[in-house]
């Protein structure tokens, strides 16, 4: 779990940074980046990355399913009345936020990678006009809404995920726990805000084609 | 029958060594072939079972709780004594020995007490090695405090949870052996009878408290570490489950019961708040260091404490004991509280409480220092009573806390029944008529870690112990006896609950065999108890069946035994025409109201033998000699 979580986290971080290039004064920047990613010379690397990513997601999900199995085995009979004492809400909803994020990812790939949602514009062979695609995509408030929702869940998922990750990997000590918690929160929020900024900017018309 | 204490003679410093040298050993290879039953997993039983298993014996260990770690020892707060003299304040093995004999009001065996003081030193080492987190100084050295009015700092402690931490040490050692397969643990299992074959203890009959199954277990020796019998009073600081059943059923098989009337009362407990009260909670004695004890001068003065001006307060301890004041020993403080309450000057709704007031201490030292010293105790008090001791004085009252009496044992900790041993609070050995604070933990661990494992070999090495099995008539008889008792109790189907009888017995004992006793009071109790006991056997209502978890049935069996023990306690108290330690007979006091011993006629251990239902028990006397510490009158004026 920890390992896959780490990979996934790494990806979203990188991905977010990639996305933020849309704000660069050079309107071509994002496309250049995409082009660079898709450049035939990097193709092998790209696919490698995609495989690792796919593997991580699958592994991650498998692990999550195992966790929930252990959980139900460990308490076959539930409580008639159970109050959740105030502890991290994110922690208890990992099993919800996770799948929704996964669903988002699928939609998202269909949307911006395969173009199944709306046709993608290419500036050249195997050179998506990412800027156009993103902007056009986010002109649709429903798409944007779903994106934003997903990002918020992702934020929660990452918040608990990261802190939990440190615990699982034994990066803990009574003294630092609070620090770790806040760091996780900050990272999660940064990522979420970073992502959300794009659709919002588009809606607000700050970023145009 | 005459009592042979087997106490060695000669210079007291070397008695234990010379005695040990005289004992036979069991060849390590043969230990495996011997099984020893240890009933009880408190400090005494837990440490004994673990140590005997380390030596190579097969151990069967029993407790009635769901885990060996829950034995009542867990509740001990204050600390454990040891003559380490780490503070160079004049302590020594000899001084601990001296203080214990004197504190016991000269009713204990010098040889045993000296050995206890010698061993106390090794106990601390052992516990530290096990990982007991004793309090430390900033330097990293072990910290000590002085406790229960001792003039030297010899008490080791782990916060307010010394008993818990020492027990966890023994428990972990025990679990280690269980993991190694050398100990078979039987939790939620109650010993209900002793199996005797050819005059030797060869096993026990138990009831599985979950399934109700009656089972027999055989062994080459049986060790009882089943704790004290303070719950005879119903209300005590003991855990709800603490009982005398194991010891008492052994007594009925012939084991002598010594000094049953020696019970200890703790002066600072939280008073009873209503008739639903189920147990009493002890507050550390240390409170008396800064708190001042008082009651109103006027009878039945119902004003709130803070409305009562100093002129109308009676700080009776300071008045009567100018030199010791509020720090007089437990029995003295307790008795005086009872006296003022009997005069009708007690406080609180029940009128059975006195004030322990921190007003002046707070004024003198400031709230912070007081919070620093007693914060957790004040919290505990507020949690239970809902009152804030920083604002209103605490209400306290004495409660039964410890029982010095128990099964008679010789220097080897063996009862008069060959092969039956008693350790810890269950035996009578080391505390005489009054136990010093922080000495029970010491004794339990001394018995279990160091004494018993050395003495038990001698018996096993020197006895012919043929195999026995379930078919043996003695086994059949014991099992029948146990089944009969349960069946009878379940069959009565009367109208009163077990607790209602236990409460009534407890009240009776508290009133007539409690803090202070009189001949006619004890006589009255002796006349009343049998009637109440008969009513119990006619009218008790035990619901449910025998073949299931049945807490009413468990209680009923224990209360049945308490009834019989109660009678013996009163009888013993009536025989002992003197006041000593915890046994205060109003007829025998000095002109200024202190306990008056009668060494000429009562310097002996009273060991009672069972002679059958209804028959008067037989009294055997073990005379006590004092070669080193010479009897003197205690005075705290």
């Amino acid at each position: 779990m920890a390992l896959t979580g780490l990979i996934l986290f790494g990806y979203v971080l990188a991905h977010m940074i990639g996305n933020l290039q849309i704000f660069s004064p050079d309107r071509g920047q994002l496309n250049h980046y995409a082009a660079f990613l898709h450049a035939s010379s990097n193709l092998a690397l790209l696919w490698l990355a995609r495989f690792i990513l796919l593997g991580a997601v699958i592994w991650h999900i498998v692990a999550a399913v195992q966790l929930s199995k252990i959980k139900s085995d460990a308490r076959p009979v539930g409580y008639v009345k159970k109050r959740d004492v105030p502890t991290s809400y994110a922690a208890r909803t990992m099993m919800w936020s996770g799948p929704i994020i996964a669903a988002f990812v699928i939609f998202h790939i269909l949307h911006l990678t395969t173009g199944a949602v709306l046709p993608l514009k290419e500036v050249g062979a195997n050179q998506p006009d990412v800027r156009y695609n993103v902007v056009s995509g986010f002109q649709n408030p429903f798409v944007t809404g779903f994106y934003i929702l997903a990002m918020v869940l992702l934020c929660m998922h990452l918040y608990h995920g990261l802190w939990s990750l440190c615990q699982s990997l034994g990066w803990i000590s009574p003294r630092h726990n609070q620090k770790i918690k806040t760091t996780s929160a900050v990272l999660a929020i940064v990522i979420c805000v970073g992502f959300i900024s794009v659709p919002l900017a588009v809606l607000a018309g700050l970023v145009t084609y | 029958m005459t009592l042979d204490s087997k106490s060695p003679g000669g210079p007291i410093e070397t008695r234990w060594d010379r005695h040990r040298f005289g004992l036979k050993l069991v060849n390590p290879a043969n230990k495996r072939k011997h099984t020893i039953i240890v009933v009880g997993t408190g400090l005494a039983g837990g440490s004994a079972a673990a140590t005997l298993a380390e030596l190579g014996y097969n151990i069967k260990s029993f407790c009635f709780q769901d885990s060996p770690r829950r034995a009542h020892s867990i509740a001990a707060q204050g600390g454990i004594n040891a003559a380490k003299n780490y503070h160079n304040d004049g302590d020594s093995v000899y001084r601990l020995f001296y203080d214990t004999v004197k504190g016991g009001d000269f009713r204990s065996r010098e040889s045993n007490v000296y050995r206890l003081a010698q061993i106390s030193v090794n106990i601390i080492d052992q516990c530290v090695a096990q990982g007991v987190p004793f309090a430390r100084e900033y330097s990293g050295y072990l910290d000590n405090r002085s406790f229960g009015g001792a003039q030297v700092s010899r008490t080791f402690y782990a916060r307010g949870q010394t008993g818990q931490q020492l027990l966890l040490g023994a428990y972990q050692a025990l679990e280690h052996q269980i993991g190694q397969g050398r100990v078979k643990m039987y939790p939620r299992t109650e010993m209900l009878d002793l199996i005797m074959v050819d005059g030797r203890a060869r096993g026990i009959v138990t009831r599985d408290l979950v399934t109700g199954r009656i089972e027999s277990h055989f062994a080459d020796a049986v060790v009882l570490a089943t704790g004290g019998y303070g719950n005879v009073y119903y209300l005590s600081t003991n855990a709800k489950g603490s009982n005398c059943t194991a010891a008492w059923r052994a007594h009925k098989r012939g084991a002598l019961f010594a000094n049953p009337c020696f019970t200890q009362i703790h002066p600072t407990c939280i008073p009873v708040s209503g008739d639903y009260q189920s147990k009493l909670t002890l507050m550390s004695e240390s409170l008396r260091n800064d708190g001042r004890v008082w009651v109103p001068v006027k009878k039945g003065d119902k004003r709130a404490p803070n409305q009562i001006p100093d002129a109308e307060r009676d700080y009776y301890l300071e008045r009567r004991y100018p030199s010791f004041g509020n720090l007089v020993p437990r029995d003295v403080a307790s008795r005086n509280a009872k006296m003022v309450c009997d005069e009708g000057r007690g406080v609180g709704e029940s009128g059975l409480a006195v004030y322990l007031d921190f007003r002046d201490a707070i004024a003198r030292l400031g709230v912070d220092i007081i919070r620093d010293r007693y914060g957790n105790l004040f919290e505990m008090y507020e949690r239970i009573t809902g009152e804030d001791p920083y604002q209103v004085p605490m209400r306290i009252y004495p409660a039964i806390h410890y029982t010095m009496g128990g099964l008679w044992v010789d220097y080897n900790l063996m009862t008069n029944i060959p092969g039956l041993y008693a350790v810890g609070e269950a035996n009578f050995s080391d505390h005489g008529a009054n136990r010093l604070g922080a000495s029970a933990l010491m004794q339990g661990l001394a018995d279990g870690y160091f004494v018993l494992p050395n003495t038990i070999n001698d018996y096993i090495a020197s006895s012919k112990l043929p195999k026995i099995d379930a078919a043996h008539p003695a086994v059949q008889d014991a099992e029948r006896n146990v089944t009969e008792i349960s069946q009878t109790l379940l069959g009565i189907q009367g109208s009163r609950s077990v607790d209602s009888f236990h409460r009534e017995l407890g009240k009776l004992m508290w009133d007539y065999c409690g803090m202070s006793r009189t001949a006619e009071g004890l006589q009255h109790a002796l006349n009343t108890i049998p009637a109440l006991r008969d009513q119990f056997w006619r009218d008790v209502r035990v619901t449910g069946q025998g073949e299931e978890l049945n807490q009413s049935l468990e209680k009923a069996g224990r209360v049945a035994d308490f009834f019989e023990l109660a009678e013996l306690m009163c009888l013993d108290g009536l025989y002992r025409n003197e006041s000593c330690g915890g046994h205060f007979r109003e007829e025998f006091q000095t002109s200024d109201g202190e306990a008056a011993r009668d060494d000429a006629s009562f310097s002996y251990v009273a060991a009672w033998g069972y002679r059958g239902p209804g028959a008067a028990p037989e009294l055997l006397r073990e005379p006590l000699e004092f070669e080193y510490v010479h009897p003197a009158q205690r005075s705290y004026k």
Partner: protein
Amino acid sequence: MRIVLHIWRQRNASDKGRMARYEVPNVSEHMSFLEMLDVLNESLIARNEDPVAFDSDCREGICGMCGCMVNGVAHGPVPGTTLCQLHMRHFKDGDELYLEPWRARAFPVIKDLVVDRRAFDRLIAAGGYISVSTGSAPDGNAMLVPKKDADRAMDAAACIACGACVAMCPNASASLYMAAKVAHLGTLPQGQPERNSRVLGMVAQAKAEMFGSCTNIGECEAVCPKGIK
């Protein structure tokens, strides 16, 4: 005051069990929670019904014997308090309380509110100790322990093995209980040699006992009567 109780009644391990409703009239605010149950049981006995079975021994918060879920919270609503230390003044007239036993595969119900916690002992037997045979110990002051370490060890050693952490954990994990023991022995120099075998042994045993795995939810700490962290 009057208290309405819904209590889990289950004759034995094989029985299915159900919630039953009881009323306890005129409860005094000074009663402890368990004394309130005593009163209920007295009335049940008077009606010739089987009293509610519940564990308790010391009744002062140190033995770890007592405990059940009160309205879905282990040991009831007051933090840092065992069930036996809980007093009725924290409730009000007419309150409805749901009492259920600890629920975990590793803690099978024996009867009513009584569960079998022997799995906790087996966890200790699997490594929660320091191996030192009686008599082999050096002088107590031979090995110095910094005060702060001794204090930290004591904090962890305060665990009373009540099982509330397991009962409350959504995963029924015993990790707080184990962490407490590991921290207790692991912070002390005496505990170093067996440090790793201890953890491995206990973790393996926890799996075998079917305790859940910890996903750091933190409800255990919230209900631990001894403030284990």
